């Protein structure tokens, strides 16, 4: 069962990005993955911004990244790019922390004018971390993420394209697994 780590990089306590990340985690569990979600905002801020990898909570996340077969990296758009908070976590990972992994970039934002943040801001960072395969990413409009109780639903019309991307990511991980087992 290919394992997936979902990182959500919104600093907000009531974050659409984090809620969407949980929603995607449910979808991926249904598709036979072991999934864990991590909110960067819950890590010790001082350790995060000073790049202190000796901090136990930070070290544990670094290990979790190393152990995962696939990583979902989710961020809100701030100033036309990923959040500084998400970048703080990515900064303290080892140089090729995503080597051998499939990675799904997901970005949320208020305006479709920032769709390119997925491919022009986030994707190069994931490539620099040595990701083996950064699959097609997706940009989700804030207004398409609708709160339903503690969880979220996706607006009609926003659901299908996002699920196609998420399912494609899942397919890549399932297809890769036998090759890894055989080696």
């Amino acid at each position: 069962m290919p394992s997936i780590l979902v990182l959500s990089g919104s600093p907000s306590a009531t974050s659409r990005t984090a809620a969407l990340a949980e929603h995607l985690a449910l979808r991926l569990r249904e598709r036979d993955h072991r999934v864990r979600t991590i909110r960067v905002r819950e890590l010790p801020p001082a350790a995060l911004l000073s790049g202190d990898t000796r901090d136990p909570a930070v070290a544990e996340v670094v290990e979790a990244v190393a152990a995962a077969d696939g990583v979902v990296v989710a961020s809100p758009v701030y100033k036309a790019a990923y959040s500084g908070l998400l970048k703080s976590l990515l900064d303290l990972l080892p140089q090729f922390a995503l080597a051998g992994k499939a990675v799904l970039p997901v970005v949320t934002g208020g305006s479709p004018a920032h769709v390119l943040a997925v491919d022009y801001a986030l994707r190069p960072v994931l490539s620099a971390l040595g990701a083996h395969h950064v699959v097609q990413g997706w940009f989700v409009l804030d207004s398409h993420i609708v709160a339903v109780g503690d969880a979220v639903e996706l607006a009609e019309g926003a659901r299908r394209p996002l699920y196609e991307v998420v399912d494609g990511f899942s397919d890549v991980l399932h297809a890769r697994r036998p090759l890894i087992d055989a080696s």
Partner: protein
Amino acid sequence: MTTRSLAVLSAGLSVPSSTRVLADRLAAATARALAERGVEVETHHVELRELAHDVTNSVLTGFPTGGLREAVNRVVGADGLIAVTPIFTASYSGLFKSFVDVLEPGALTGKPVLLGATAGSARHSLAVDHAMRPLFAHLRTLTVPTAVFAASEDWDNSTDERSLLHRIDRAAAEFAGLLDRSAPASGTGELDDFVPFDQLIARG
């Protein structure tokens, strides 16, 4: 003699920091270039490492607190900004981006900005132009055409045309030109230097 205020933002994590050294050299070269134009410079340094705690708090709460508030006012109120970050994973650091995230929309619009970056090798030189420059395009700053990237091997004090010293001087000359031509910043981000309209009119 006219005076221009300069904020020098540096996001290095270590002490001593090559990022801070580059920021200092850019500031000194800018002061020299402006002096040649008969313009004096008042420089204020903002060292983000010292403000990391406040930066985190404000990112999580949405409000700049403590020393960060003063730093934001310095940056917003300055006539020009030198912004220098270490390059991690082919982009600006998380601390640098977190500071930018805290700024109000439009806070830096029209401000002359000189970009600088440091890294362990030249392999990620393009990060200045593919990551930093688009960020400042979003902030609608007047960004100097020459940005200065300094890899570890650049700190050799050579003075040929491709050397770091030469690039610093070229960038500073361009920056000085922008600062000299642009109007001084309108305020400090606060209302403490607010001039009532009747007094403005009285000045002619």
